């Protein structure tokens, strides 16, 4: 389970502070698929980074009693000067798993060919995204954090990701942030809405979608 209690996140800016998230409360159970809807700038990415533990909340407590992934599939979490292969090895070392038996999978899935042995900084954004997704599938987690996965690759690659994530790992929990209602509707059984730094929960998903439609103009 992941439990988020009274969490706020404040960033210093030139003339004071901005409150990006305010008094957030949320629980995610094992196997649950939760969608977080929000417009640009609603605090979605900050939310995902806080849940992943990459950033710390300014106030409040986040507890994780299941293993939680890093924020997936947007091309970050790489060191640009290292090759794709060395980034793969780095991530395997960090999470305590062997890299050697995973190279073939990443090579094939990412369709990078010999570019896997070139520095990531030379990749196009599509190549980065493909590598990012392939690498994030080699470490197993109880809960995957997915940040706007929609942006990944062409339709065929999108389909491959879909199978890998939503069919093969259907038993895991997932937290998906997106601005796209139909994407959340397709993959999640529960939806919450992030608006102006506050989180709104609803009894039914339809209410959430209705609220989001109303507040997204």
């Amino acid at each position, binding site marked *: 389970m992941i439990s988020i209690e009274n969490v706020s996140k404040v*960033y210093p800016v030139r003339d004071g502070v901005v409150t990006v998230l305010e008094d957030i409360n949320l629980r995610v159970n094992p196997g649950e698929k939760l969608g977080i809807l929000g417009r640009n700038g609603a605090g979605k990415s900050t939310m995902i*980074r806080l849940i*992943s*533990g*990459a*950033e*710390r909340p300014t106030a409040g407590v986040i507890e994780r009693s299941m293993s*939680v992934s*890093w*924020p997936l599939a947007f091309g*970050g*979490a*790489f*060191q*640009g*000067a*290292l090759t794709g292969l*060395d980034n793969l*090895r*780095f*991530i395997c*070392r*960090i*999470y*305590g798993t062997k890299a050697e038996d995973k190279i073939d999978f990443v090579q094939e899935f990412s369709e990078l060919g010999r570019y896997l042995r070139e520095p990531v900084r030379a990749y196009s954004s599509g190549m980065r995204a493909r590598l990012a997704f392939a690498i994030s599938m080699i470490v197993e987690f109880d809960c995957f954090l997915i940040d706007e996965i929609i942006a990944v690759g062409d339709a065929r690659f999108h389909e491959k990701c879909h199978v890998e994530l939503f069919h093969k790992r259907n038993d895991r929990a997932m937290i998906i942030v997106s601005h796209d209602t139909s994407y959340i509707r397709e993959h999640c059984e529960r939806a919450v809405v992030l608006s102006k730094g506050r989180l709104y929960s609803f009894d039914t998903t339809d209410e959430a979608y209705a609220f989001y439609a109303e507040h997204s103009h």
Partner: protein
Amino acid sequence: MALLASERRSWTIQRRVIGALLMREILTRYGRHNIGFLWLFVEPMIFTLGITALWTATKSVHGSNLPIVAFAITGYSSVLLWRNMPSRCIGAIEPNLSLMYHRNVKAIDIFAARLLLEGAGATISFIALAFFFSFIGWIEPPEDIFKIVFGWLLLAWFGASLATLLGALSHQYEIVDKFWHPAAYLLFPLSGAAFMVDVLPQQAQEIILLLPMVHGVELIREGYFGTAFTAHYDIAYMALFCTALTLFALAQTRIVSRTVIPE
């Protein structure tokens, strides 16, 4: 028991992360071309050899009759040890920000990896040069290796705590980087590497001994040359200085970890 088990798990994770960061540093810094990671100690060796050659050629006025080659190797190796650590830790967080998306990669691990690498480079260079010159008979073997090791460790502690403090501060204040370059340059002639404290006038001795690294260098030289000269050092003073520096460094690193934003 539960606490102990969780501490042990954290330690396992931290070791893993530091190991991964070490490999990452070696690959990006030295790559797989020509001699690769051997540069780790070949570079400081070239520095030390250059200084040794210069000081030998100019019969540098170090104010004693100690053999100049051994004097230069002990002195300049010490400088490389404590001075390169801060240089590598200042601005160390920035290029690693994307890796901090992984929750277990923390600022302190990034510093630790760079410190280990820098410490290893300076140490291997020092040992290799001392062995080489002993072997060809240009210098005598040291009198008391234990003292050298102890002085070396004290200097490494000083370098590591200063590096961590400046590394953490530099993430918040750009000015740290600007100020470190002249400071490092000016501290070198004052650090005890190029003179013996004993030859200074009494008053100058008191002032120069305010600098903690001078104590470490004197201790290393006493270990090397033994009773051939009078060393001036106060281990308690240096240890106290390093302890205070370490506390500041850890506090500042904690502040940075709370505010760092991966990108």
